[in-house]
Structures are given as C-alpha cells and as structure tokens.
C-alpha cells in the first residue's frame, strides 16, 4: 500500500493493549482534525463511519463507497409496506433455492430483526424450500425468545452454533450467511434510544434547569415531522461529548477536548442537512446516523471480524445483508414519523417489526414487551484466530478498494494513518 491507497472501510479500534498505545501516541502527534477522529472512537467505540450517498461526511483517508452498500436513489412516491418488503425478500430466497439450490444460514439472535427473517421464510417458503435453510444461533438466542424457539426453530431446522462457527466456516460449508445486523439501520439506533429514555442519568447534571425543562417539554415530539432536531441541539451537544471515565478498553483522554460534543453534533447535522431524503425530527436525525453513516459497518463487520480465512472480497459480497433489500431501503426512507418505527417508550421501538412477527407467532408477550438487546455484544463468539497468519480482529483497521485487510500494527499502515490524520482538518465546525 501507499499513501494514496483508497479504502472502503476503516475502524479506530481500542484493544486495551498495543492498539491503544498506537492511537494514544498518534493522538499526541496529530492536529485537531486527527485528534477529533481518535476522540470520536472514545465517544462511540469503535469509530467506523462513512456515508452511503452524496451527503457530506469527510474522512481523513482517500475513500470510496463500498459498491454493495451504496444507497438507492430516494423515491418519494414509494408506497410499499414493511410487510411487503419482508415477503418479497423471502420470495427472492425461494427463487434462488429453486434456481440454484442455494443454501442459507440465518444468523438468528432471537431479536426482532433476525426473527423477521425466519418469520418471512416460514411464511413464504415451502417445506421443501425450507430444507435449504439452517439456523446459526446461540443459547442466548434461545433465552431471548424461548417460545419462538420451541414453536418454530428447535427440531425443525439444522442448528449451527454461532459461538463456535464463524462466517468463514459457513462459507466453506457452502452456505450463504444471512445477517440481520443491518436491521437497526432501518429503524433507529441505540444511540437514540439511550438519549430518549436515559438522558437525565447521562447528561442531566450538565444541563441547566432551563435546558432540562426545555428537553422534558419537547421530548414527546421526538418523532414529530414538524419538530426539527435542532430543537434539541444543546442537549445533543452534551450527549455527544465523550466522558471522563470511559469503560475498558477505551482510554481516558488526559487533555479532553471540551468542544468535541459540538464538533460531533455539527458533523452529524451537516450530514443530515445534505442527506438525499428528508431528515427532520429528532428520531429522523438518529435514524439517519445509523441508516447512512453506520450501515456499512453493520453490514461489513461480520465478514471483517468473524471471518479469517475467506477472501474479503468474496466474504463481503457473499454475506447477505437481509435489510439491504431495496424495498426495505425505500420503506425506511419513506416511513419516518408515522408510528411504525417508534412510539414513546422503549417497548414500542420497531413497532412494524413486532406486528410482522406477531402475524405468525401470535405471541403478545414478545410483541408488547420485547426490548432492544445488543445481540452482537451478547454473542461473545469464542473465536480462535491464528494471529501468526491473520491480524487479530481488533487490529483490523480497514479494507482497501482492492479488498486487502489492513493491520493497525503494520508499520506501513501506521504511517498511512498518521499521514492522513496529520492532514485532516475540521472543516464542518469551528475550532
């Protein structure tokens, strides 16, 4: 690689060890722009963000949008429903089974997004077609929805333990891995849910009494199409500021940038203002962050971090991101602020998803009580990575446009990072 190498994907990862040393040393060597990038990874660990459309989101390194994830053109006249998108995606699988005898391994966590996949397939595929479907899952998934497991999964599908077997094994066995990891991207983000439901604990002591009253009086409009997200600007700036006592492996910044929260807000806001579809309400704002600037990470991270042996080009493009289906993407851009994505409590997040699953399982407990649980964090895969051959997962810095995986401990990669961070400027916000 050289300094002009273009990348599809990058990640500022903390590992609590050598990577921390590198990023901490680099932090002290670079200017405000480079510092912002590393501080970003203190606030949102790890920092892996890039735009999928022409909206403004500057990165330090030469980059291109990973073709698979390029955002479809917004169609304001789209009238399709979430139900229709789910059924049509399942029917596409049916076609591929019939035409190519393709085998699918569904990454099933028991959460809402992956349960949509199994539900859609059970609803739309024949018994014969379902023989080409395996369920890759873990005991956490069983516990997350035992009723569904008992009724629809256990004894009915081949089960593959996702805590033992990763994407490379699935690919080697001839499966197309199917992930719902991009499901959140359609609806919103934990970053938003934490702000809506726990802002008082997180930033209450940093806001004035007047600011707190303002937030309390307006938060019920979080999904109001006529209330612009900037109404919440003061609180969001405080919310985006990284903390003084980060949790391992994120290191503390001994000289914290007190303006980081404002810079991050300005960066997000500029991206939202230049989005290819309307971004108005507070929930639109958080939705757009994950739908646009985080979705490539949600789509790629399986192939990137739960796969060692398989060629990255094939792995990324072979892994099936269920929600990348164009009908879902259009539905997501056309159905904000109508109650389908979020209500006023955490128990109504992804309302339309709950309804779709209920249509099959009739489980009101799950429909009305299910909460967003971070399956990725729970499913701690017991990875065995031969680090003499492959970079350790937390050291995988990026993917070039030639699908080469970059190791943050590689000196050439480190020089590349330092060069570009040194030249990076904060152009979207005041210093």
């Amino acid at each position, binding site marked *: 690689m050289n300094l002009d190498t273009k990348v599809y994907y990058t990640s500022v990862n*903390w*590992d*609590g*060890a050598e990577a921390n040393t590198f990023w901490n040393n680099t932090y002290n060597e670079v200017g405000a722009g480079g510092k912002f990038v590393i501080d970003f990874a203190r606030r949102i*660990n*790890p920092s892996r963000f890039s735009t999928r459309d022409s909206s403004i989101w500057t990165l330090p390194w030469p980059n291109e949008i990973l073709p698979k994830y390029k955002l479809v053109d917004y169609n304001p006249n789209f009238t399709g429903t979430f139900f229709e998108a789910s059924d049509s995606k399942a029917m596409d699988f049916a076609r591929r089974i019939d035409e190519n005898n393709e085998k699918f391994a569904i990454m099933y966590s028991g959460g809402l997004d992956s349960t949509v996949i199994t539900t859609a397939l059970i609803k739309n595929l024949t018994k014969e077609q379902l023989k080409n479907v395996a369920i890759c899952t*873990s*005991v*956490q998934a*069983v*516990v997350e929805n*035992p009723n569904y*497991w*008992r009724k629809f999964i*256990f004894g009915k599908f081949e*089960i593959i*333990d996702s*805590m*033992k077997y990763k994407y490379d094994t699935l690919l080697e066995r001839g499966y197309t891995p199917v992930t719902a990891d991009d499901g959140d991207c359609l609806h919103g983000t934990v970053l938003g849910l934490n702000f809506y439901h726990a802002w008082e604990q997180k930033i209450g002591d940093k806001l004035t009494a007047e600011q707190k009253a303002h937030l309390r009086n307006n938060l019920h409009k979080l999904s109001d199409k006529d209330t612009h997200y900037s109404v919440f600007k003061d609180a969001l700036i405080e919310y985006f500021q990284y903390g003084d006592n980060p949790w*391992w*492996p994120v290191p503390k910044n001994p000289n914290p940038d007190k303006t980081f929260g404002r810079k991050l807000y300005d960066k997000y806001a500029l991206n939202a203002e230049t989005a290819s579809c309307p971004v108005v309400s507070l929930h639109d704002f958080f939705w757009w962050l994950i739908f646009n600037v985080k979705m490539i990470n949600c789509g790629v*991270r399986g192939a990137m*971090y*739960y796969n060692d042996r398989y060629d990255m080009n094939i792995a990324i493009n072979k892994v099936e991101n269920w929600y990348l289906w164009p009908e879902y993407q259009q539905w997501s851009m056309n159905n904000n602020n109508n109650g389908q994505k979020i209500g006023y409590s955490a128990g109504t997040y992804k309302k339309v998803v709950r309804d779709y699953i209920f249509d099959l399982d009739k489980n009101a407990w799950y429909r009305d009580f299910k909460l967003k649980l*971070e399956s*990725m*964090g*729970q*499913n*701690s*895969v*017991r*990875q*065995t*990575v031969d*680090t003499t051959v492959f970079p*350790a*997962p*937390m050291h995988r810095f990026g993917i070039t446009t030639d699908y080469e995986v970059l190791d943050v401990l590689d000196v050439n990669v480190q020089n590349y990072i330092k060069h570009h961070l040194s030249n990076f400027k904060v152009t979207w916000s005041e210093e």
Partner: protein
Amino acid sequence: MSWGNQIKEKVSFFHMNAWKRRPNANIFYSPGVDRCFAVDTFDPYTAFEVAKILSSKMPAIAVIVLHYEDRTDVNNNNVTNFTISDKQVIGGSAGLLFSRQTPVFRKMQKPVLEICESMPLDYMPGSDGYSTFMEFSEYTKFVIRCWHTTKLFDMVHNFLPMEEFANEYLSGEVPQDMCIPPDSSNSDKTASALGPKNEIRRILYNSDTIDEAMNKIADMWRNNNTPHSFPMRKMFYVVLNHPNYPEPRDLGETQSETDLTHYSGYLL
C-alpha cells in the same frame, strides 16, 4: 388466595427472620454432635445452600427454621452451647438421625432450642472432636458470609446467566453440543469453564480451612481476570468485608485484561 398481604400467608412462616419476627431464625444443627454450630439471619434458601456446601464435611446437617416463640438469645458466639429438643423431627421419609449425606430443611412448629451445660462427652474441650467441631463452626460462619457475597455479586454483575437458563429453564431444548457459557465473565479460556460463582462454590465445598478457601479464591480471580470478572471481583472483596482477607494487592493493582483474539464482545 389474594396474596395481597404476604405476611399472613403460610409461606411467610418459613421466613422467621423477616418482618422483625425474630433474629437468627435459621440455625444449623449437627445430628452427630448433637449441637448447633451456626445461626443465620438472612433467607432460608441461601442457608440451605450453605448446608449443601458444608455437606462435604458433615452429613445430615439440619437447617432448622426456629419458631417465633423460641429463645432469641442464641447467636454465633454461643451457638455451640445449644441443641434442639426434638431429635426426631420428621420431614420426608426420615428423621434427622436417619438422613443422608445431603442436608435437610425443617420448619419448627414449636420452640425446640435448649441450652446445654457442657459439650457431649465425645466432644468435650481438649478432645480432637471438640477442636474439629469448633473449626467447622468457624468455617460455617465464613461460608455463610462468603456464599451470600458470591450470590450477590453474581446477581448484580452476571448479566448472561446462560448456563442456568439452558440447564434449568430449557432443559432438553438446547442442542447438546451447543456452547453454553456459565456466565458473563468470559473467563473460560484463562481458567476453568465454570465461571466465578461456580468456582467459589466448588472451592468452598472442597476447602478445609478459611485460609485455604480464600487463597484458592484469590487464585481463581487471578486466573479469571477479564473485563467482565473485574466488577465481580471488586464487589466480592468489598461486600465480603473480611478484615483478614482484603483484595490481594497484586489483584487490586492489576487492570483486567482480556484476549480480544478470543473474545469478540467488543467488536460491535
């Protein structure tokens, strides 16, 4: 059943320590020595678990829930002076003296505590039996303290009790070869696959002295030093609050580590 006023329900009478009915209601009795050896003011369920842990050393331990009218001057300083008057309390199919290695649990319907002027002849002070019994009594008090602490840190910090759910709630419904982590400590590579709570229970079951148990527990924390075992360990030593066994210095100064090559929980 309304269950509106729990204090009047029959279940409540198994909780003699509750609602200020009386202190030290759960008493540990040895049928072989014919003396009590510890009292407990917390819940009956944990008291019974403590008796199971102690069953590696003493058979047929009886955990007796004392009647609310029974004498209340018994405590952990004088408990070995007491016995119970009814040696043939029936529960299940056997009386206390004809029970098994595993402990029994009984709720008394009347006062049974009696103070004794001396130890039984075979366990008089100066005898081997006496010193063994007194050491066991001290170990029991320690196990009560340690096991409560262990259950508390596990309840607070074990956010993925998957083994418990797989085995106790979903038995037969999880494929047999599926990976079932014992808890959220993610410590299965550096030490045994048991997890801290199960490790401590096993250590308490197998150790002969407090010193041996605490040394093994310290080693267990050293070998299970992960980001998610870190708060468990901190809480363990704080709540245990044992003057002779604070958190070992080398552990206190060691920031937890994890093998991120192995554990993927940070790869969000």
